[in-house]
């Protein structure tokens, strides 16, 4: 499903230049939930951005379903993001003027397919995530957990095979975080490839594999049970 080989990324220039990724390599299969952990500033989010086609590596390759993302033009990359990748962010990034359900439906305006079908999918997802009672509310009136669930619904509305989540529980209390973690686990079980960048041991605990980002490279981390035990 998703593979990355030898990813290199440097940020800054001159004396401020810093090598964030230095040959990072990974694979995520359909139905698999992979967690990436690491210190703050170790490059977890940068890795996620490269995998999601939000940024381009200085070297290395990212391949999604056989398509080399690092070689695509910006227009084609946008199409891949619309159709094949779902993104969830730590800060939710819901559009403040749009209601919860409108936020969920927003990507359907960007991908192909009918408007009405998109609205139906959005409504179904909102219902599945238990958000129908607050579907018409503006983000500022929602709890963090509700906002993140709307964000997950938005990431899923175009039915992408790959879901990338950047610290999805980082801004949530323990209970809300548990709901979102369970949701991600369910999505992987349903056949999607899910990659989560996290500091949260509870999230890592439900992952099929946990990778640690150290010195710009991905290495297998402790097994889930050991991590949770810590």
């Amino acid at each position, binding site marked *: 499903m998703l593979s990355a080989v030898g990813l290199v990324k440097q940020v800054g220039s001159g004396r401020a230049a810093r090598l964030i990724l230095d040959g990072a390599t990974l694979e995520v299969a359909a139905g698999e939930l992979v967690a990436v952990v690491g210190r703050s500033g170790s490059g977890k*989010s940068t890795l996620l951005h490269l995998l999601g086609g939000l940024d381009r590596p200085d070297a290395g390759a990212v391949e999604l379903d056989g398509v080399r993302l690092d070689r695509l033009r910006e227009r084609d990359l*946008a199409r891949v993001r619309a159709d094949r990748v779902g993104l969830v962010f730590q800060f939710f990034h819901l559009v403040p003027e749009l209601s919860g359900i409108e936020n969920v439906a927003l990507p359907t305006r*960007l991908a192909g397919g009918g408007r009405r079908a998109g609205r139906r999918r959005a409504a179904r997802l909102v219902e599945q995530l238990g958000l129908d009672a607050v579907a018409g509310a503006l983000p500022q009136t929602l709890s963090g957990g509700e906002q993140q669930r709307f964000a997950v619904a938005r990431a899923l509305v*175009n039915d992408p095979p790959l879901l990338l989540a950047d610290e999805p529980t980082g801004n949530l209390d323990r209970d809300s975080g548990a709901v979102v973690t369970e949701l991600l686990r369910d999505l992987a079980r349903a056949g999607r490839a899910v990659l989560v960048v996290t500091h949260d041991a509870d999230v890592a605990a439900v992952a099929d594999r946990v990778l640690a980002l150290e010195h710009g490279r991905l290495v297998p981390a402790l097994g889930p049970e050991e991590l949770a035990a810590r």
Partner: protein
Amino acid sequence: MRRRRPSRTSSIAGGALGEALLRLRRRPRRALLAALGVLAAATMLGAAVTVSFGLATGYDRAAERADLPDVIARFDDQPLTRVDARVRALPDLAAASYRQEALDVPLAAPGHATGGGAVELLRGGRRGYAVVAGHDLPARRPAIVIERGLAREWGLGVGDRLRVGSLRPLPIVGVVVAPDNVAYPLASAAHVYLSAAAIGASLGARIPANVNVAQLWLRDRGQEDVVLAQARATSAGLSGLTFVTRNGVEVLIDQAGGIVIALLVAVSLVALAAAGAMLAASWRAEVQRQLPSIGARRSIGFSRGDVTALNGFEAALVAAPAAAAGLALGALLAGGPSARLLEALNELPPGAALLGPLALTWLAVVALVAAAAAWPAWRAASRGPVALLRGGDVAARRLGGLSATRGLLALGARLVVSRRARFLATVLVLAVSTGFVLLLLSLASLLQSLEHDPGSVGKRYQLTVRLGERDVGRVEAVPGVASAAPRLVVEGADSYALGETVKLVAYPGDHARYEAPPLVSGRREHGPGEAEVGQGLAQSLGLSVGSTLAVALPTGGEARWRVAGIVRGLDNDGRIAYVRPDRLLSAGVGAAATLAVRLQPGADSDAVAHRLAAIAPNGVATAVGGATSRSAPFLGTVATLVRAVAAVDAIVCFFALVQALALAARERLAMVALLRALGAGRAAIARLFLGAALVLVVPAVALGAGLERVLLGPAVARLAAGYAALSLGATAAQALLVAAALVLLAALAAGWAARRAEREPIPAALREP
């Protein structure tokens, strides 16, 4: 030795200046965008200042440089010695000079000829004109200097030759400007100047020592009334005596410039107001962009004053070069047409004198921009650092009718509308600009119609031919001619106020068949004892329906009519009266020597004129123009000027849109990045910004059209010609054209904003909320 410590104020100022420079260097593109906004507004101001200053001061400047006399006395030919004796007896006289003026003298140069030359035979003394090329008349050698209007119209210059009457061709040694009249061909007579002594010596003939013009310079211009009263008292024996004062000439010139000068000054004032609003709005937008930066400074201990000073300095540093460039550009754009306009009025362009007002305007623009930047920064700095650090976070507001499910256009519209105050301010700026462009377009159309369309001033005849009443039958037999009638024109003066001139136009029958200016009140005249008077004349003489119009005629007689109606007439500034010829003929005025000719629908005017020339070789057939066909180049110049100002205004509109979108993009950096992360390409982001631009443009067009129709058009028309009702409303086609242009500008601005947004890295924008 104790070193003096720098004061806190100077250290803050120095620090702020240095930091402002640093910030500008670090963000060159943002500085460039702000500079472009200032440049656009300054360009408009530069054009307005150039036109307004040139027109407002042109006469005084030309009069000073030409040493225009304080009083010009005209009279029938008199011996020089007799006139001089009386003039020398006048009080407070500083100097006097004399000349003999001969009108309708044939002038000819290769490829050009006119029978309307005004030859001024100078008798020495001060000239009353300014030499703008070559030099003045030599004392002995026969030579000629000509007025600038003639030189330009005929392409003559120093060294060329001009034939005057029956004299052999004379070398042109100078080109002069005499602001006692408008220039040829706006004035019917082309003025040329000769030295009586030199001509006499050259021809070996004795030039009669008669003069008919005396130019008087006073020691104290405030004593003008005393001198005139004395001159009138001692004028016995001088027939045909009239006086024109320097101030009086200015009034006459202003009348000749008529409608257009007042219109231009009016539109320049509107331009000034629009440009001011633009400047203030654009920098308020810039401070909005800087909110996070202000928040960061406040959070580390910067005072409100420090933040304000920094923004003021930064704004001034951006505004100073941009305003200078904009003012220079505006002056350059408007300078050419404005100079041609001044030339037509026999006035001089301001030249270096324009630098003063432009420098003041520059200072005002820089101060305004600095204040506009400092004030919102001062206000913004009063907010808590946390709120500021969130940048331009927009309080979410539910907005009916703009559902996001309708697409990115609607979402873009929501982004802009959610900032209500700024939305209204931007719409207002665009609306004023739109109304202004519509006003200028309708003005240009009106000027063109005045120039070419006789119907625009109520004339229903298309040709005139120099033939008498007895030739009516022959003319009407010419194919293409519908009818012809003798048209008698007499210049008279009001019997009670001899300074008030009246143009009498007489037709033997119903004049409305040939000239039908719209009635304001009363009815059409029905007989020899009735008159229809123009609104200008009615206003100046206090005439109303039922009152008596008494006119002193050139023959010395007087004729009276009862006012039957008041009409709207542009001709002769509305100082016109339509009458039957009976009473004029009874008072000794000669019969009409001109026929007004109406053509059949679809008849070719040139072909009919050609046929008329065949039956009347001496009766020149002339096509009828609009308000005054002689002033065609003048009106054409004004129309060009007006269009140039409209183009500058369009640029201002574009930058208002770009600024609004750039600000929305900056405030919604994270949202735009999110949309891109969700798969929005450049086209989708362009749709988003197009929605944002359209929601500004659509109400602005509607508001601007209404503004022009209800407020600007009528106000400017009234200001231009209180004596006539000008139709100064934009047509539906013009409104559609402006709307289409604005939509195009909106699309361009949206494309630009989308392209710019695409260059922002998505992860950086998404890093923080």
